[in-house]
């Protein structure tokens, strides 16, 4: 709540200097402090539209902190201070044009542990559309619920029990429910903070497939500890180490031909 921002009312480019796809989000010199402790030491990162960007790195390197800056979830943490520029479609997300609530409707989030609300499956999905007034009629809401569940690959499993509590689903189903819940407000970007770390391998495979499909319509940033997962689902990978972004490149490039020694050390399992 006590986030202080010291941003110039700046805007960021919509394309990188070398051309290429549209830049959905841009971070310039992002620094984050928890009280006196600096967690991020000036991160520069460009997130391309309709791509999956994976953030990898050892525990405590600041990748989750960075992810939570992108939709201002750090605002809810006491003593957290963010400096630098983060832009969505060229617009400063900490600026006056957008507030945190609007931003989070455009940049959705899926958490490490599945966190369905203690409500019915239907109400879980309908929660976002209802508070944002997206659907005006019952039919529209029904349709949003159905398409969201379909996109999350959960519709066939739950269509007969939409009125049952979401907490009664299995872990993998709960996480897909949370993804469906995020999709239901039609965000532009979906942030995923280790979405599979609490799931078994089969549920993980399900979610990975889903991420690949979602790329068509959404820009996705995923934090993961699982390097195979990063290699499987992402097009771009950024390696974080001790609060710095060491290297960011095409995923293939990072895993086959890393430029930095630290990246190589981490992906070959020498430390982490």
């Amino acid at each position, binding site marked *: 709540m006590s986030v202080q921002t010291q941003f110039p009312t700046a805007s960021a480019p919509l394309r990188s200097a070398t051309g290429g796809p549209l830049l959905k989000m841009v971070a310039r010199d992002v620094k984050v402090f928890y009280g006196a402790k600096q967690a991020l030491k000036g991160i520069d990162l460009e997130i391309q539209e309709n791509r999956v960007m994976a953030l990898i790195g050892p525990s405590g390197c600041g990748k989750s902190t960075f992810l939570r800056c992108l939709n201002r979830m750090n605002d809810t943490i006491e003593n957290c201070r963010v400096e630098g520029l983060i832009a969505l479609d060229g617009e400063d997300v900490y600026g006056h044009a957008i507030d945190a609530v609007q931003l*989070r409707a455009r940049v959705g989030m899926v*958490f490490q542990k599945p*966190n369905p*609300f203690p409500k019915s499956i239907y109400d879980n999905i309908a929660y*976002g559309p209802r508070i944002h007034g997206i659907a005006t009629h019952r039919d529209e809401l029904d349709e949003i619920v159905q398409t969201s569940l379909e996109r999350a690959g959960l519709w066939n499993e739950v269509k007969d029990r939409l009125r049952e509590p979401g907490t009664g689903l299995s872990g993998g189903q709960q996480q897909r429910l949370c993804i469906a819940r995020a999709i239901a407000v039609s965000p532009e970007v979906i942030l995923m903070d280790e979405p599979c770390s609490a799931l078994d391998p089969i549920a993980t495979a399900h979610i990975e497939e889903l991420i690949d499909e979602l790329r068509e319509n959404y820009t996705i940033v995923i934090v993961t500890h699982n390097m195979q997962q990063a290699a499987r689902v992402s097009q771009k990978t950024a390696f974080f180490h001790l609060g710095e972004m060491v290297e960011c490149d095409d995923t293939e490039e990072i895993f086959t031909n890393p430029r930095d020694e630290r990246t190589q050390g981490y992906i070959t399992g020498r430390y982490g």
Partner: protein
Amino acid sequence: MQITVLLLVLVLLTVIGFQLGRSRAAASVGGRTVELHSVPSYHGFYVALWAGLPALLLFALWSASEGWMVMQMVLAGLPDRLTQVDAQALSLLRADILNLAHGVNTGREPDPAVAAAAEQYVRLRSLGDWSLLVIGSCLAMGGLLYARGRITPDLRARNRVERTVNVALVICSLVAILTTIGIVLSLLFEAMRFFAVVSPIDFLFGTHWSPQMAMRADQVGSSGSFGAIPLFAGTLLITAIAMAVAVPVGLMSAIFMSEYANPHLRTWLKPILEVLAGIPTVVYGFFAALTMAPFVRGLGQGLGLDVSSESALAAGIVMGVMIIPFVSSLSDDVINAVPQSLRDGSYGLGATKSETIRLVVLPAALPGIVAAVMLAVSRAIGETMIVTMAAGLTANLTANPLEAVTTVTTQIATLLVGDQEFDSPKTLSAFGLGLVLFLVTLTLNMVALRVVQKYREKYD
């Protein structure tokens, strides 16, 4: 005197026993304590228990039976003309002997035989105390030596000590349970006596409460009427007013404390609010009777209403204030127990803080909040002092909060204050009321506990 000495001796022997047991155990394996079955201090406790427990048991039995036994011996030595009488005279004789023995001046010259008996009583008691001291000390010493002799490296001292402690724990919980059962049974039996005189139907469904009865046959007085409906209606009215104050205020302050107040403010605010729970109810009673009631009456008169100077409204409002900390403190705990991940999930969807609280946090905390409110209701129903002081004693059957009403607890208090005779329905009706009240609050508490249990299953 002898008893104090005995207790001191026991404490001393237990401490010595502990030390001896521990060192003996260590010595038995030449200091390599890992070879012992149990850690040396368990051997110490083992010896200490043997030294202390048997002597303590003897002491308890002795104290319970000594007075009676000595009295029997004294009575056996008295001439028949004194002892061959009816039970009442015999109990008078016993009281005389005891009074003389304790040097209480009864105001009349005692019978020489009785005086002699009293002297014998004193002698025997003193002899008994001395023998208790000697036997008890010997028993403790014997226990100590016996247990010390049994110490070997293989002795399962830990298991034995733990079993003894186990038994002690069971006994302690039994004491609590038996006391409760005893209270309920005494309530039940007195209530039965009441219901033998007044039919339960009249009691539960009668609408007129006027417990005054003639105490002597020649006395002029009403015959008494025990319809408890006005009391229960009054209780209900005041409880409803109290909850109407306590639930909104308590819940809102809980939401403020857990969701909006910064931690620094919260560490100040919560204890201050909890101080409200520490104020004696009789102080709330002053406040209700001297401040709130005149204020309510003044306000009512200003609005052109006829307000009695002792009104249900004043008592109910003050009782509500008293209950606020119950609701707020319990609800605050429940709201804090809602996982942060649920709030994050809601914020992550672009919900505002108030939407998150209204649509996610409160529904998730609802079972716990309901339980908190239930407990607060039981508290309000059982509250006596505020109502006695501020709402009056008139058993009006009314739904108008501006009139004086009375509650079950207030009536119980007034029925049992002052000189009583325990064969009059007037006095006994207090037990009838108490029984019904007990059943009501028991039901409420059970419902509240069930709700809490259900809630716990959900998040662990």
